[in-house]
């Protein structure tokens, strides 16, 4: 994991992947590349889980992407699922008003 990919992708089982975010920080030149990659994961899998538990730095745009992916997946009959979120990310999600639109894993 480095600045080229501020997240790691794990295949949990066929059709189910987990994106483990460390930092939502990266060069703005690569932001679109990351979004395209995440969108492709949503298209090619039934379930995309993501974990923001260990994420200590993130821009609001990354959270909005997650919201967008969640909404897109729902329209495709798929699922984008948040399996963990640090307090700071939760706080930012509240500030920008998207918390209710994130799909949290029921524990």
């Amino acid at each position, binding site marked *: 994991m480095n600045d080229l990919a501020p997240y790691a992708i794990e295949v949990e089982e066929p059709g189910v992947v987990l994106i483990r975010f460390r930092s939502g920080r990266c060069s703005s030149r690569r932001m679109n590349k990351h979004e395209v990659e995440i969108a492709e994961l949503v298209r090619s899998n039934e379930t995309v889980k993501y974990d923001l538990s260990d994420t200590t730095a993130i821009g609001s745009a990354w959270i909005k992407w997650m919201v967008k992916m969640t909404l897109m997946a729902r329209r495709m009959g798929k699922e984008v699922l948040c399996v963990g979120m640090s307090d700071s990310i939760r706080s930012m999600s509240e500030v920008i*008003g998207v918390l209710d639109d994130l799909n949290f894993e029921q524990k």
Partner: protein
Amino acid sequence: MKVAIWGAGTIGKALAHRLATTDFISELHWINRDLNKIQSRSTDIEHGLLFAPVCRRVTTASQKSASEVFDEVDMAILTQGYPVAQGDTRDDVYIRNREIFREFVIPSLSGKSMPIVLVITNPVDHLTRLLYRETDLGSSRLMGLGTVVDTARLCHSISGYVSPMPYPRDIWAYAVGFHNEDVAVTIPRMCAMGREFPPDLLEDIKRLVQIEIANGANRVKQATDEATLHPVIEGAVHVMKSIALDMCSVLTVSVHDPDSSNDLFYSVPCTIGNQGILERLDNLIPADTKDSMRLGIENAIRFLHSCGDA
């Protein structure tokens, strides 16, 4: 450009400091009810003028001298008045702020066609209308900050949902109508200059950006430590810059509705230049947004009637 700021509340103070460091303000004249409150601050701003791009003079004046100050400046920014208390609406301070405007501001502007006046005090639409009705400034030299800040929040919010993510300034969307809970937003499908904007998510995104705008406005109203008022200051600076440099920027300031028999002021996109309001761009507002603006217009008329101000 020579500018006067009236008021030394949170916005007045922040604006005074910010304007001294801009590259288009040559003189700053600061007016306040209580001179003691601004003299030390004004001196500190003067001490920083060595590093200011163009500002060479900062003065203070009591509000009794406001009329003389207005004779010297190109533009005046009105920030004085009661702030909106937590749990109240902007309309709740109208009566009290109207009294302040009638007692001090309107006599100071009496008989003047200059300067260009930007009102920031809330409720901004109704107070700008009051100045229009009770001074000779006219409709092109008088504007309220209106929904400039709501539009800034809107464009930033939308940019986060567009791929690849553009600068907020590259988003063409507007918050229009009244600067209160009745604010309406217009988000054209091509608002992101040709970049991908998921059309099937348009309604969801519209809902989400409205929540973000409302959250931002609530932070300002709650005046907690999290409310920096930064976008308010930057919005006001951008309006002034557009006037000083004749930029013809499109901004959603609060302007006179020439078709309103009640002389209502509310925000529509306008070009702003060195003569003030150059042109209203009503054609940028689609029919469905105009429909939702009508509710705000009806509520404003009802409110003004209740204040004996129709």
